[in-house]
């Protein structure tokens, strides 16, 4: 009964307090920095090219596109990686688990931009899905690996007890193994989200929109303020997403483990 699952959080009270403090400090810092940069960018004397990008409607649209991309990617990742991880931990599927992990590993090891462009050349699609699908493939590994590790880390005595008192195989999976693996899966999802929100800045290459467009415009037209605003918004969004991941870990983890 002592160590059934690693919760992902350190249970030492000191670092727990640090976690708590970060939970409040992180979003506050993001809001302050983003607000400061936006006020600076919107109140300075912008020329017509800069004004084309630096107006509320464009900034909102691009941020919204970026957010939609991230959410879509996260949804794809969860829908594919979690069930796949559950299947791969069944005893009959054990032998093929390394194969899938290797494929996911390739996805992550390859440069994200390469994956996106190859996918574009292969399908000749463009837009949202042409960006979301390869980026999802790119950020699949953390969730897949943590689902497998999380389920594997469940004490075999618990699954034995579950079967022994008459739970069915799926019963044990959904009532014992999955709840106990949730902390690790959420930690994996948080990593995936951060990867996704960062990589989504490359979506503009295939016409997928997002904050990458601002960065690109600022760079190509040599308009530093546009570049800065795009970059700061992307960083701010990544930190916020990471924060949401931390909150989810805190809220959705199984009770009674610490």
């Amino acid at each position, binding site marked *: 009964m002592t160590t059934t699952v690693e919760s992902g959080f350190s249970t030492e009270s000191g670092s727990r307090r640090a976690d708590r403090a970060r939970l409040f400090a992180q979003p506050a810092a993001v809001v302050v920095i983003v607000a400061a940069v936006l006020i600076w960018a919107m109140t300075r004397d912008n020329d017509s090219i800069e004004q084309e990008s630096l107006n509320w409607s464009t900034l909102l649209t691009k941020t919204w596109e970026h957010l939609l991309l991230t959410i879509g990617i996260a949804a794809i990742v969860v829908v594919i990686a979690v069930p796949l991880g559950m299947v791969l931990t069944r005893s009959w599927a054990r032998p093929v688990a390394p194969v899938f992990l290797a494929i996911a590993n390739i996805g992550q090891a390859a440069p994200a931009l390469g994956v996106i462009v190859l996918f574009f050349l292969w399908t000749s699609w463009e837009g949202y899905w042409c960006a979301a699908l390869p980026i999802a493939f790119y950020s699949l590994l953390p969730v897949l690996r943590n689902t497998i590790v999380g389920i594997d880390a469940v004490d075999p005595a618990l699954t*034995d*007890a579950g079967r*022994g*008192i*008459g739970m069915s195989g799926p019963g044990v999976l959904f009532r014992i193994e999955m709840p106990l693996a949730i902390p690790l899966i959420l930690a994996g999802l948080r990593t995936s989200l951060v990867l996704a929100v960062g990589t989504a800045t490359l979506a503009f290459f295939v016409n997928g929109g997002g904050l990458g467009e601002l960065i690109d415009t600022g760079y190509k037209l040599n308009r530093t303020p546009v570049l800065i605003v795009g970059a700061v918004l992307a960083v701010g969004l990544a930190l916020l997403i990471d924060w949401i991941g931390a909150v989810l870990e805190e809220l959705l983890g*199984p*009770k*009674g483990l610490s």
Partner: protein
Amino acid sequence: MSETIETTANTTSGAVSGVEIQLEHVTKRYAGSREPAVDDVTMTIPAGKIVILVGPSGCGKTTTMRMINRLIEPTSGKITIGGEDALSLNPDRLRRNVGYAIQQAGLFPHFTVAQNIAVVPGLLGWDKKKIDDRVEEMMDLVGLDPKQFHSRYPRQLSGGQQQRVGVARALAADPPVLLMDEPFGAVDPITRGNLQDELLRLQSELRKTIVFVTHDFDEAVKLGDKIAVLGPKSTILQYDTPDAILANPADDTVAGFVGAGASLKQLTLLRVRDVELRTDTVTATVSESPADLRQKLTDKRATYALILDERRRPTRWVHVRDLVAASSLATAGKPLGDLVSLQSTLQDALEAMLVEGGGVPVTGSRGEYAGMIELDTVMATIQRLREEHTES
């Protein structure tokens, strides 16, 4: 499921609620190994009894037990539970009617105590009210205050408390059969002793059929109605009452497993009330005069007398010499040292005799004098048991 294995209503009258389990030529052979893990085991586990499977690590005792609820499927052979062929049932449904308790309890850490206990009734589809009532009843049964422990998580309990919850969970759906795999193996000796006593108390009420696996022979002797001593491949070396195994181990392997001090262990199984007491000791009540008692002792050619109080409880020993100068029996002689009751084990009696240096007075249920127990009696009893079991 209850159409296949009859679950009887919970009774407190001590009626047998267990059913008989039969293993016939049960063999387990794992793929890739030449020797079977369990080789042709045939045994009958009587209804309402505690049967202990005891043997060295790796002898296949756990495998044998796990075949009863089909956590391990036998390669060949037949298992019946209450006359029903266990191998023809759906394993999940079968297990819901066979209680299962394991080492370190195996409680689900993310379930509260109440949720853990409620698992099997929930699987059986009981309604919520019935489950809640049952959870409360089970917590009372294993000695955990429902108010205090209902919503706690296993991490917040001591090892002994977790084990109690484990037993409550195993019994929650009132299964006729309970399988226990070294359930008290991971708790400290004192707690283990308490849990063992608790299990015996529960069993005297519930009378389930309990199959209990352990490697601790002392635990087997304490808990078992019958003990199966298993050798390699789960072959049954001896299957008998603890008494018989202690008195007459079937072979050297069993004797080795029983260990040194078999006769001393046997003394823990016998009670003072089971042996004959000597009643020819001279007694006198405190109100009698010392002179009368002296006369009585001389008549009977005895040197000692036991003084009883008005309610016939033993109080003092007095020597015939002490009576010469004594004015009252209330102060003559020396106060009593140890005494034992009819409920005491022969081991307690032997201990008292060693301290006293001879016979020890025995008292009945209200503390009244019942007779004397002597060293000779104890030795004769052991001798007799030994001979009985050798003959049979």
